[in-house]
């Protein structure tokens, strides 16, 4: 489907993206999804059906911490922030991702 400009995320990459976005500071689910869209220039559109379970899973693993706070709009929102453990995990995943990306790039280069 080359015409489709919106990519589905590869399994596992969503976690990496969430962690990365949260290095910018604590944010709520809505904020994270908006941020992702913004940064990826609308290429990456996260389904809420994947985003929220991912957030909860990461929190359960101890990579995120959460707290209810007032958002800019004045409503109460659940804010997530990186834990120390999450920071370590992010470093690890970034490294892995880059290695794989490089490998894929190499393959693509060679075969062409």
């Amino acid at each position: 489907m080359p015409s489709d400009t919106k990519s589905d995320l590869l399994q596992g990459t969503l976690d990496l993206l969430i962690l990365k976005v949260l290095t910018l500071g604590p944010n709520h689910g809505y904020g994270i999804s908006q941020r992702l869209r913004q940064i990826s220039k609308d290429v990456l559109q996260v389904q809420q059906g994947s985003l929220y379970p991912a957030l909860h899973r990461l929190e359960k693993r101890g990579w995120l911490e959460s707290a209810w706070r007032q958002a800019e709009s004045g409503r109460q929102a659940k804010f997530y922030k990186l834990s120390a453990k999450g920071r370590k995990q992010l470093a690890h995943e970034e490294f892995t991702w880059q290695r794989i990306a490089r490998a894929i790039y190499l393959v693509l280069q060679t075969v062409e």
Partner: protein
Amino acid sequence: MGLKFRKRKEALEQEFDRELRFHIDELTDKNIASGMSRNEAHRQAMAEFGAKERVAEQLREVHQIPVIESFGKNLNFALRLMVKSPLFSAAIILTLALGVGANSAVFSALDAVLLRPLPFPHPAELVMVRQYNSANQSPSPFVAPVAPVRLEDWNRMSSAFQAITGYYTENESETSGPVPEKLTEAFVAPRFLQVWGVAPELGRDFSPAEERFGGPSVVLISERFWRRRFNADVNVIGKSLHFGSPVAGHRSAAYTIIGVISSSFLFPNRDVDAWSPVPKDAPYAQSRENTWYTCFGRLKPGVQLEQAAADVARVQAELGREFPKTDADLSVTLVPAKEVIVGESRASLWILFGSVTLLLLLACTNIAALLLARMTDREHEISVRFSLGASRTTVMWQLLTEIFVLALFGSLAGLALAAGAAKLFRTFTPNLPRVERISLDWRIVCYSLVCALVVTFLCGLLPGLRGTRGRLALANDGRTQVSGKSPAQWILVGAQVALAVILLVGAGLLQRSLQELARVSPGFDPGHVLTLQISESYGETADMKALTERSKHILDAIRTIPGVEAAANLSSLPGLPGQSQTELKILEGEQDPNRKIFADSRFVSPGYFDVMRIPVLAGEPCQETTRPTVVVNRTFANTYFGETTAIRHHIARLQTSQFSLAGEIQGVAADSREQGLNTEPMPTVYWCSSVAFPGTYYALRTRVAPMTLADTVRRIVHSIEPNRSVFDIQPLTQRLSDSFAEDRLRTTLLSLFAVTAVSLACLGIYATLSYFVSMRRREVGLRLALGASRQNIALRFLLQGLRVSAIGCVAGLGLAAASVRVLSGMLYGVSRFDPATFGGVVALVLAIGCLATVLPAIRAARTPPMNVLREQ
């Protein structure tokens, strides 16, 4: 916990909702900002967000507790699987129901009789205090009742006890009603209820005034008697009971009821209807030679049995110095009350429990083999699970859950079985101590559940480990290879055979023992003998002459009953284990002081040898004479007189109480097994005497069926002795048979277990070989096609089955030989390693092994080769 869990869940739900709603609200705001109407903005936001409920559902999944959640899923799957293969499931559930049921049933008995503490406060402090004559070197030291004064000395001088008390029982006639009713009355020393730590349910304990000589006559009655006689009337306190002075013409004594004792208090035994105090200052209670009491004491808290034993030994040694004549030779031992009450049933119960546990183990092995076979069929399914990303642990849990569901159903069915068993125990072993406490309660339910868990792991671990081993089995082309898997299955089959052999040997030995016992010639003829008791009281012994007259009178009256051939009274029934080895001396000639003479002493009236049909070999049987005479048995004559004839020698009992006892030997009777059918005749002295004491039996040889005379005897006795009651009427054969009730039950149950075990093992061999044959159809077909003979094929399978049976058999025999030690005290006339039993078991097991293998082997031989080859 469930509530907390639900609350946590509700809080989570609310949080999900708030979090997701925030997202939608923000989206809506954004849409409004881009110029949409509120409604449109909201609709758009909802559309973009997707189904909120589905997201919530996914969140829920993230938060579920993995074990419980997956257990639920597994459970669901297991139930579906169970329904899908109902026959297989039913077979397993049934096997387990039997295994767990039998196990729980025996455990319920074991628990009630052995494991639970006695129903008294601080039961560990209760001990029986026994005295025995340490100078008496007889093989069974005579455990004598204790003199009241000595009991008081012990109680006063010992520092280890809170209190020591004693009791004895008598059968009384209660004469308030139209006919005398026989009651069992316990006469108790002071401190009786205090030692047991119980209080009357209604009313009060004895007061000091009532425990003094000449004080008011009072009685505590049992709840049972209270309900029966007084219809549980709460105003019973103050009413009177009239205990008949059995002496005709004397006024009966009135006892005032001061309290009712709960029916859970079953002491001294479950028949006691009334308790009365014996004053310790009574003139007749002052002799150190009067012996009455069986004694129990309550230790001070924290005092150990050994300390207490050392303490009473010290006390008795002091008494020995103070009263050398009566107390020097006495020693005192302490036995925990529970030991005394549980007694010999301990070994029986443990053996039964061991047997049912073996049976359960066998059932598990059987099921494990079945599951192992089925694992092969499920190989495909399991590989699919693996390839879908399931871990080995997940698959293992799934398999164990399946088995657990089956085990649970099996255990529940087993519980129903165990519930019935409590009744069975009460019916068949009424003499089992504490039998009334056997019941199904939460302890048994828990036990069954634990059984189900253990069974799950026993049955499931091996098949589970094996089944999940070949993760890459999917690569198989569907033509299953079994050669590598058979050893485990065959080991399981061998184990089943071995377990069955152990049980068979045990049951076989007990059966042979009973057979031997039935073959024993007792030396007396118990057929057509009616036995009964007539209420007496120790008080009557005050006038021995009158008592002798009365006893003779009663006997004469009974002898006149038509259908009665002969009648006698006797101190203890023949063929039933009793006490009483006494030391004797021969009055004539020089006595070798080192040669002790012991004999079983029995008091029998004239007519005894006719009633029991014991031949008198020389001299005369007991007759009505005024001089004291005795008859001895042949063993006594041969042992102590040898060549010289025993007749006209005089023997006397060594002085152990104030009653001297001596007599001239007047006859020699043939040996008979007076002390029990399983006991060789021992030297026995029959003292000829018609005097009836409490506990004396009357025995009648009848021409008709014994029980048909029961009413006539009752009437005749009532006509001449209206204040006495006739009770405990039974044919002698019944009593002899009852004395082996426990042996018989033990044997029957063990045999039942053994038969079940053999059937299970047989089924195990059959199923495994059948499975094996079906797995190797292709190979067999190939062999046949290549020219192998059918006999050859059949023989190969037959030998395989037999080899496993034989190996199992040998292993089982080894284990059995190592474990029959536990039966040693219960065997009569057979050795523990009885070759006939062991040989018989081997023959039986091999025959059954043959039977189980022959069908599958023939089926293998009948394989149509072409069909099979075409199949694959």
